């Protein structure tokens, strides 16, 4: 199980929690698990999310590996100028 920190405005979809646990070994599994366990997150996941793994931000990499001790932070999908 990995702990996933989500940003505050998604709390309404996770029963008020800003940290949830899911069984996932990569980014895609994590997204699938989150959408299954917390259907309220699905609209945001479909709009786009990024993932910070141990401080490194991944925007789309489904197969980015998540270790059991990884720091995992869900972030909005990022763009720039």
């Amino acid at each position, binding site marked *: 199980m990995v702990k996933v920190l989500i*940003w505050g405005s998604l709390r309404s979809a996770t029963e008020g929690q800003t940290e949830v646990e899911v069984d996932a070994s990569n980014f895609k599994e994590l997204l699938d698990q989150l959408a299954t366990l917390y259907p309220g997150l699905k609209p945001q996941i479909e709009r786009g999310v990024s993932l910070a793994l141990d401080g490194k931000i991944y925007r789309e990499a489904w197969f980015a590996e998540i270790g059991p001790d990884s*720091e995992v932070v869900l972030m909005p999908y*990022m763009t720039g100028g």
Partner: protein
Amino acid sequence: MALDSEKKQVFKVVGTRPARPDGIDKVTGRAMYGADATAPGMLVGRILRSPHAHAIIRSIDTSAAEALKGVKAVVTSADFGAPEDESIRDVQDNCMARGKALYHGHAVAAVAANSAVVASQALKLIKVDYQILPHVTDVDEAMRPGAPVVQADRAFENVAAGFSENVTSQCEFGHGDLEAGFAKADKVIERSFTTAATHQGYIEPHACLASMTPDGKGDLWCCTQGQFHVRTVCAEIMGMDASQLRVTASEIGGGFGGKTTVFIEPVALALSRKSGRPVKIVMTRDEVFKATGPTVSSSMDVKIGMTKDGRITAAQARLRYQAGAFPSETVTYGAQSAFAAYDLKAVETIGWNVLTNRPKEAAYRAPGAPMAIYAVESVVDELCQELSLDPLDVRLKNAADKGTKSSYGPTFEAIGLRATLEAAKAHPHYTAPLGVNQGRGLSCGFWFNFGGNTCVSLNINTDGTVGITEGNPDIGGSRASISQMAAEELGIPYEKVRTIIADTNSLGYNDVTDGSRVTFSVGLATIEAARNAIKVMCGRVAKIWGIDEDAVIWEDGCAKPSGPNAGSFDPMSIEEIAAISANTGGPIAGHFEVNADGAGVSFGVHLADVEVDPETGATKVVRYTVFQDAGKAVHPDYVEGQMQGGAVQGIGWALNEEYIYGKNGLLQNPGFLDYRIPVASDLPDIETVILEIPNPGHPYGVRGVGETPIVPPLAALSNAVSRAIGRRMFELPMSPPKLLKAMSQKR
């Protein structure tokens, strides 16, 4: 995919300042910009725009225009379909209003004619029946229940109750116990701020040439930051397969984020399809201001607590961004960036994006960050004044560092903030004496930086020179930097490499040139492509020598035997290997395709000295220094240029630039005479100090540098002006009338 193998820290080509490859073309006028494209039988396209801020389009009668001699096609929203993807539908509806004109300047119809004169006459013959609606252009007014609704049913599921329908999204970030944090503070300051919408101000207006053939093929030449994105959007809007629409990017006369989307390209394609002729559209400056994206304007509240010795105990921000007539997520970047420079135990940022009757916001360098950080850095500066603390020492005391849990969630890897702050403190600028009516301000800045989808083809020509094909328009010197990285890796002179920008049918998909991504991710792909080409060359030499591939190494542009069992052979140069490539297996090339991650965040610190004229309220920037972590500066001239350019744009944002709307909702200043950007005579030499803290996610340590420099100037200038006039400023721009008013209130 993060690519951080085979790190290199000693360089021969990277870090030098070779001549820019586009220099001669640009200074002699030979460079081909968007408006320079021509085609046989080409028509001129012109767009009719709404004279109202908000109006239902009851009907459009184009019959008289169509009957005018020389007019070949007229299009309205009826000539476009309804793309399934909501974001693309928004782009289409921004290019051509559907049902309602949502802002002053919104396109409602377009014509293609034999000449510009005829096209302009035809526009006057189009009869649009409008039903004028109440409008709203101010963000705070737009949020209130009962405000005119710009678009109904566009709010995301996470927006709290109590707002008007114009509030389309809400975000919240942070951690820790705010109440306990504020209780520990010796001083708490809470202030409200506003910033105006500003335009990216690129000198080249949007321009394109579209050519559709009767069998459904299309060619599009345009000035853009991303030809592949243009293809995706236009193919979807036009109902075409991507393979049948080839998009070629012209040279680009500035973009700064504003050319990451489309405004006229689908219109030109539709006119060309209808007329059967190529159609060129070139925006006027008036159209650029009215109908292309400025950045958001904002209204913000910031509250920060600090101990007497300068430790921040808690920090809170509320950000309200207006993004024009279509939903946007820019406030999320502001909310994440606001406190990124600080190591905080208790922090909370909440943001809202809001619809108004203004043009659809487009990205502008570090979108969303400059205004949020302006508000935060202004309050930090005021706390320093109130507590008689040195503003640099306070920032050093609270600086985020490796291992800091950032205000937006992740723990930072190696970052360069502390190094930039220490460089600023050690710089003579920080302690230089100030004159009468002068003040000094400073600010930190931050941006995330990104990598993204990238595709590079590197070909070894038969004479041993190298051609590189990449897919990102060169808006900041990337052709030079990419050639340098290839030359470095291959061990050959820079002059032996030429990099070109490919059209969409010549290379795999590349993301838009944004997020300060190109030198990082295209550079990374180029290095890996070069390594792949080297592997091919070493393999062929191994066969010639009859030894294992592992026994051949690449050094200084040559294959050499290596190891005790390799034998003794004279090195083979890249020229020698290339010359016999036909005999050894055919053309030699290296390719690399990646969705790059690991770009590494970027920090900068700016110091600004200003002098405010008490008689006129005019502010003169008398000294300005930029300190920024570039990871590794591949071509320092270009890095310095980014740092200087960002500072200058930020100075304009802070002092003069603003979209001014009248009570009628119409834009009052759509031109460079009334929308005043800084010119050379307004500015001192912008001094630059490049720090190089290698990014662990790149083989050469490169970080993006293009966006961070526009973040600090807003607060640096506001803090300097506030100290110069002895009164704290809370509104941008600090134009002369506002400063005169502030100074008179002081007296």
